[in-house]
């Protein structure tokens, strides 16, 4: 079978035989990358588990200084952003480029809201002296070494925040390409891949929220 057939689409790379093979490969590759991200955060979840098991009371006392309302708001924001992301892909699947762009922009807006809320949370903590490690000066938490909770809090939400920013950069890149008509119902793989990454960021937060904000 010659691979210089006239009907070989432009977006089909030379080393793939069919569009399906290319798409399945991209998807599998992306899921393996998400696997690495899960293992990355997994390390922090391990540190969390170890220290919470050692100091359950300190964790309880320290977590009370987290704002449950803001945390809940951010959870709602991120879930909504996942919805808009999924919808953006669904609309490009049916070739509705206008709606696809609309929902992609919405995703970015919700992502920004998340970061703004986080900014307020962080600056409040900085103000109180609830800082990581050797910069911790807050006195209001009972229990030994309360800075450990805040170190873990900042490590986990900080790493998560970095991934939100990275995700936003990817989404902007995809948005630009979408506006330039690079995608259609026939080919939207990069949008799908960006979507998978974005959902992962949501997945991590789904666990972070109860573990940090809702300790019984």
């Amino acid at each position, binding site marked *: 079978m010659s691979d210089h057939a006239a009907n070989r689409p432009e977006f089909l790379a030379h080393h793939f035989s069919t569009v399906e093979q290319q798409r399945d490969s991209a998807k599998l*590759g992306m899921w393996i990358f998400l696997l690495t991200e899960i293992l990355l955060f997994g*390390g*922090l979840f391990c*540190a969390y588990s170890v220290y919470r098991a050692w100091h359950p009371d300190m964790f309880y006392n320290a977590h009370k200084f987290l704002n449950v309302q803001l945390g809940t708001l951010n959870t709602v924001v991120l879930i909504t952003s996942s919805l808009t992301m999924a919808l953006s892909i669904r609309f490009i699947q049916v070739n509705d480029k206008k709606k696809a762009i609309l929902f992609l922009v919405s995703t970015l807006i919700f992502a920004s809201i998340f970061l703004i809320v986080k900014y307020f949370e962080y600056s409040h903590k900085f103000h109180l002296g609830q800082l990581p490690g050797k910069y911790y000066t807050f006195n209001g938490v009972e229990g030994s070494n309360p*800075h*450990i909770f805040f170190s873990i809090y900042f490590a986990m939400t900080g790493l998560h925040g970095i991934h939100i920013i990275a995700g936003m950069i990817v989404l902007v890149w995809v948005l630009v390409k979408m506006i330039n008509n690079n995608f259609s119902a026939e080919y939207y793989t990069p949008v799908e891949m960006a979507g998978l990454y974005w959902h992962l960021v949501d997945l991590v937060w789904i666990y972070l929220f109860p573990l940090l904000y809702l300790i019984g």
Partner: protein
Amino acid sequence: MSETYESYLTYPKGIKSWLFTLDHKRIGLMYLFAVMFFFFIGGVFAILIRLELLTPAETIVGADTYNQFFTLHGAIMIFLFIIPAIPAALGNFVLPLMLGAKDVAFPKLNLASFYVYVFGSLFAIYSIITGAVDTGWTFYTPYSTESTTSVISMTLGVFILGFSSIFTGINFIVTVHKLRAPGMTWFNQPLFIWGLYATAIIQVLATPVLAITLVLLILERTLGIGIFDPAMGGDPVLYQHFFWFYSHPAVYIMILPGMGIISETITVFSRKKIFGYKAIAFSSLAIAFVSFLVWGHHMFTSGQSEIAAMIFSFLTFLVGIPSGIKTFNWLATMYKGQISLEAPMIYTLSFLFLFTIGGLTGIFLGALALDVHLHDTYFVVAHFHYVMVGGTVMAFLAGLHYWWPKIWGRMYNERLAQISAFLVFIGFNVTFFTQFILGTQGMPRRYYNYLDQYQPLHAFSSFGSWIMAAGFLLMGYYMIHSLFKGKKAGKNPWGALTLEWTTPSPPPHHNFDEIPKIEHGPYDYDKILVERD
């Protein structure tokens, strides 16, 4: 295929076509130069270590510098040489050819992997120049948080290098799943592919944990987060859990591709079908999985709980089984085979002998009570050099010599290669067998100073290192010489049955004119007569 064709070496032309190449063969070659360079640098540090240890107390440098020598030797050899060597250099070149594919699944990711490697190595070099590190390659806390050496730049370098490893892993897994030629099923692909595949699985699962470990270490140093510092309520042993969760599977990243090469060379140079194909394939997967369950055997004397130690010890015995299965299967492959002793086979036989010693001594160390005496002694140093050098490096050299004609279209000088292999083998055993003895006699590792009673053995070991060095220098000479004056190689100089030997040597840019048809298995020497070309 016409006689005149452009190989991947000459087409496309120009430096930019190399710097921006998406050709897996060119990327593999650039990796090969890089890992060989770092092998040389790591080797220089090894010679310096052994020079210092010729006499107790100071021989050539002070204690702090000595600590930097063994740290850099370890870090460079592990992160810049041995982990990328077989997968990224040989694997990149051979994998698509063996599968009958045009390239890997994600060629741009492949190039990115190389540049990330280069970028990471720059951080490592920067660290070396600005005061280096003296913590040991394991960066244990609390010393690594307090040492005034350039820990952060080195750990950042390793962090970046990890991404290179992850990208290669993702690429290989998807390539093996999706880009096999039509008719090549999972169970009639070459065993080198299984080895690379199992390696890739470990790379993607384990390396992220190294990443987070190094991030936490950097945060500990900069922000004093305290999670590894007892004074702040932290636990230094937790660092070791984090570190070894990656670093134990990492040693299987090092050995699995080597084992894959052995399956290739042993069949070709015995002209015989592999014994127990499925057993070897599944053993590769078993090693990959069980490797994640044994990391605590590096921590038997760290203060971890007894029950954890017992669980890890038990699982460590388990992980030796698939390696044992493979070794027996390789031996059975040789039985009644038509053995020819060219350099790839000499290295293969060296591997069998040396890896067996290395692997068995690993089992000794897995016994809790024995490890209490042997932990942190030269016995451990000897063990891991037997598996990493006697195992992986021998396999790497076997593969390098085996695929040399395919990569360059030139044969190396077989007589010089045999002399070199002999020197390396002898030199290696003189250097490291001695260290088993030193270890059982109580000589601790990473010690600058030692009691007089150990000196004769230390001197003997150092002498061995010079023999090894001579072997490697000779190897460098005849390999470079072969590029200019080596006999031109045909398509299939070894008479092998895997797909990479159906293309010209060196292969053209696009690998195959037509997608290959799979008409036989990779080891069907009993069914197919194939001549050396």
